[in-house]
């Protein structure tokens, strides 16, 4: 486990809300905030083993109106959060902690829970796309990405997932 990563229990937290210092989600004009009246926000499980990147993703998505139901650094944490929080989609890094391969995990989540993933990686190639195909990926986001690219990709992924259902 990276020295930057907090203890698993600290990461396994329920739906976070934007911190006081953040702009209101409504300002971002995206999916709307779950605290206000309107449709429930899309629940996103973030599988990312780098705490700094995960925290940034969490803030950006919260600001864009998504509900980040938790951050998992490996397969065990992801399965625990999934059973507890029932996310709508997963933002999945390909290299996770404790030997977890994000593609394998995504395939497992799709096979067992029909849950689809938006993959995030700094190293996307044809082999990875082919291996991930059975998990019916919601998309691929290349690192390094900007805040806006992240929000747009998750928004598009949420739309694609809706189309399927």
């Amino acid at each position, binding site marked *: 486990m990276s020295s930057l990563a907090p203890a698993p229990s600290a990461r396994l937290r329920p739906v976070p809300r934007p*911190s006081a*210092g*953040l*702009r209101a989600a409504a300002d971002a004009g995206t999916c709307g905030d779950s605290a206000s009246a309107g449709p429930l926000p899309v629940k996103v499980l973030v599988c990312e083993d*780098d705490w*700094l*990147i995960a*925290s*940034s*993703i969490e*803030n*950006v998505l919260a*600001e864009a109106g998504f509900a980040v139901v938790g951050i998992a650094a490996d397969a065990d944490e992801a399965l625990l959060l999934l059973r507890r929080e029932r996310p709508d989609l997963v933002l999945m890094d390909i*290299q996770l902690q404790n030997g977890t391969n994000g593609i394998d995990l995504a395939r497992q989540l799709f096979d067992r829970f029909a849950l689809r993933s938006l993959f995030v*990686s*700094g*190293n*996307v190639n044809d082999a990875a796309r082919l291996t991930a195909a059975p998990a019916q990926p919601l998309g691929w986001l*290349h*690192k*390094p*990405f*900007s*805040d*806006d*690219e992240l929000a747009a990709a998750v928004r598009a992924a949420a739309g694609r997932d809706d189309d399927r259902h």
Partner: protein
Amino acid sequence: MPANPDAAAVLDALDEPAFLLDRGGVVRHANPAAAQFLRRPLATLNGQPLAALVASPADRLAPFLDLCARSSQSMVGGLVVTDQEGRSLSCPARGCRIALAGGAFTLLRLQVGEAKRFRALTDKTISLNAELTENKRIRRDLKLALEEKEVLLREVNHRVKNNLQMLQGVLSLTERATADERSREAVRSVRLRVEAMGLVQRLLYQKDDVSGIDGAAFIRLLVDNCVSAFGRSDIAVTTTCEPVEVRSDTAFLLGLAANELITNALKYAFTDRPAGALAVDLTPHGQRAGVIRLVVADDGVGMAADAPPGTGLALVRHLVRRPGGSFSVESSRGTRCIVEFPI
């Protein structure tokens, strides 16, 4: 059965090793050249089966001798003998049946001169084979080394992109957590610069060729990122990019310069107005050959001639100091910044 003396005399006069064999393959007469060739006393050869004197496999020698014994025409074959160093040496041989006073014999002649040539050829073949084997080993080692380097390069590239993502994340978190407007603005400027470099890095490694990137795609993504960061949807932005491949080292400079000029326009050009137009053009040639030209033009408030240069423009001036680079600003109705870099 002793060989015919006349025939024996003829054989003895030959320079090449020769034998008279009976139907059983036993040597009935061997000439001095044969004794010398086999490195055995001449007297010990007569009465010995030829199979005991040579190293030819029995399943090859017997059929050859049988063929010779039945043919009055010279049959071509070979014997294997052991040389002084203990190495097996193939020696071409010719044999045929001859009728003598004492009966039918097989006359077998070894073509030693051919064998020597054959030896040289064999040695050369062995040497070439060894060379080929060594070359194969070197090629295999090089292939493995190359594969290892490719894996290492992918890993390093992955780390670089991950670290850039982490840096962008830190800056993004810092920007969001900074209450003071000017401080937040400063952090955002740094974040956009890092994102511009990250974008180059991402585009470079999205394809196999890391020597350059698609300049048009790069500038479009960069413009989108800057405009989005400032939330100025009221600005009409047009991006015109001609197809151009930009070298990786130039791409970083171009990205940083474009980021500064676009950011500058979005920050200062439209401060007193609710709307405006921003045009970003990239062309693969400037006024001189071998340069790429970026023009960022707005219809905003313009730039005062005596305005002190900000950090952004100072950075652009610094970036174009490399040979072939140039930077100029025209300000009449709005501002028009032109940057050129060598391709």
